[in-house]
């Protein structure tokens, strides 16, 4: 395949993936927006004023970046894992596997679809947050790149889950028992400076902490760590999971017998 043909293949997968979640927007876009709006109402509006300031910001302002990031993470992941496993389950993953489309294009197409949904939901949640908070983005470039990289990372993670999944139960186990706890403990609702030294150190093992704080730094200019550490951790995990995803596709694990 020449470059133009590869572009067509990539574009085809991307359009297919975007149409897939756009067609069922009531299931894919609306629920996270409603859930996050409830967080804003309960934690920001009702409980927030009792808490006071956190890291020098009103509690509502503090939780907005974390909640946007939480929506981006869960939706990027969910999009790719459900789409990839769905393709395996119906067998139509074979449409790509028999074609000359290289594995890295297949990977890029699925991941871009996940990023598209993550960003779409993130944008919708951001718009809702404007009803509750005056959002002033301190560092636009950092905000955008951190959300893009995080979305990419969790799309890759979703694909790996999809590759190994052999039932619909398998695609809910990781989000329920790994992703949700890590996200909640990743500094969405609090600063780790509130924790005891032991729990602070333990929290540093949670990669989501670096993404939430990086994003919070982009929007509020406040973070529990340097932005370069956030970039380093996210980029490192992308390289790791990206390489592993390509290895899985090359070996045909979970998709070729």
């Amino acid at each position, binding site marked *: 395949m020449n470059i133009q043909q590869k572009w067509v293949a990539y574009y085809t997968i991307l359009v297919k993936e975007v149409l897939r979640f756009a067609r069922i927007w009531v299931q894919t876009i609306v629920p996270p927006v409603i859930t996050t709006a409830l967080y804003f109402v309960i934690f920001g509006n009702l409980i927030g004023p009792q808490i006071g300031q956190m890291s020098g910001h009103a509690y509502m302002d503090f939780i907005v970046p974390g909640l946007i990031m939480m929506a981006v993470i869960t939706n990027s992941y969910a999009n790719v894992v459900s789409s990839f496993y769905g393709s395996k389950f119906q067998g139509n993953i074979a449409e790509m596997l028999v*074609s*000359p*489309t290289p594995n890295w294009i297949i990977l890029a197409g699925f991941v871009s679809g996940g990023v598209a949904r993550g960003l779409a939901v993130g944008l919708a949640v951001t718009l809702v947050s404007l009803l509750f908070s005056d959002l002033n983005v301190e560092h636009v470039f950092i905000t955008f790149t951190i959300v893009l990289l995080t979305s990419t990372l969790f799309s890759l993670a979703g694909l790996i889950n999809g590759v190994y999944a052999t039932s619909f139960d398998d695609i809910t186990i990781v989000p329920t028992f790994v992703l949700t706890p890590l996200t909640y403990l990743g500094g969405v609702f609090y600063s780790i400076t509130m924790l005891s030294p032991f729990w602070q150190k333990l929290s540093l093992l949670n990669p989501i902490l670096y993404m939430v704080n990086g994003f919070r730094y982009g929007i509020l200019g406040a973070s529990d760590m340097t932005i370069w550490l956030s970039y380093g951790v996210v980029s490192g995990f992308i390289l790791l999971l990206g390489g592993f995803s390509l290895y899985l596709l090359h070996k045909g694990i979970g998709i070729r*017998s």
Partner: protein
Amino acid sequence: MTTALDIQGLRKTYDNGFTALKGIDLRVEQGDFFALLGANGAGKSTTIGIVSSLVNKTAGKVSIFGYDLDNQREQAKAQIGLVPQEFNFNIFEPVVEILVNQGGYYGIPRATAFARAEILLKQLGLWEKAREQARNLSGGMKRRLMIARSLIHQPRLLILDEPTAGVDIEIRRSMWEFLRKLNAEGTTIILTTHYLEEAESLCRNIGIIDRGDLIENTGMKKLLNRLDTECYLFDLAEPLAELPHTSSNLCHCSLQDPTTLEVAFHKEHYSLNQVFDFLNKQGVQVHSMRNKTNRLEQLFMELVENNKQ
């Protein structure tokens, strides 16, 4: 003549230890209409799976129109169109989208793919369903959709794994015509089927796989000529009171019921004309006649039985 498919020493052992292919060699020439036959579990689908990159091989070489599947994967894959045994499209996608997307995976721009999809869907009688979700199609329509999808990138080698399973005879015949025309236009076709009359009617060459071994690879006519016995059923105008008497053990008569006479004879010693002469002399009035069993089916069973021994 160019070789469309060249398989050498192909082996496949699955993770559970089952050896599906024991080192088969197979050549299919360009322009051929080739039947790959075998019982369930014989290794046909594994062979097709390896050729179409859906199954990892354990050992051996596969090349498609001279492109090595290991070292020139993209070029090799671009030559193949696959119609798998099971429906494997996204049932929620509109019919035309399935074709256009498949074209996209081969690098065909959407406008070109759409134009080709329209032609293919019209040829296969599916254009009226182009905007419908694939799940709303009947079984026969789904089979035709898979054929259309496999042709969107105009492959030089089309592989059909039981394409007519479960479709009614009318649609089956129309699919046969479509495939014959496609083959006449230059597309090499490999067909697996359990309908042996289908293979006999369509294919020029044949390979038979049994328990992972290729036990036969020859021309269809050559294979059929090996049958030394023909067996016909004659529907009689009137019931027979007793069997026609024959003195030769090279021709044998038996009554299936009073108006159905079975005659088996050695091809080398008798012709059908002689059989009719014989029946005339015996005063037997024949209404109609047919082969007792499909000839290829008879041979197939003999070959598989011999391989067991």
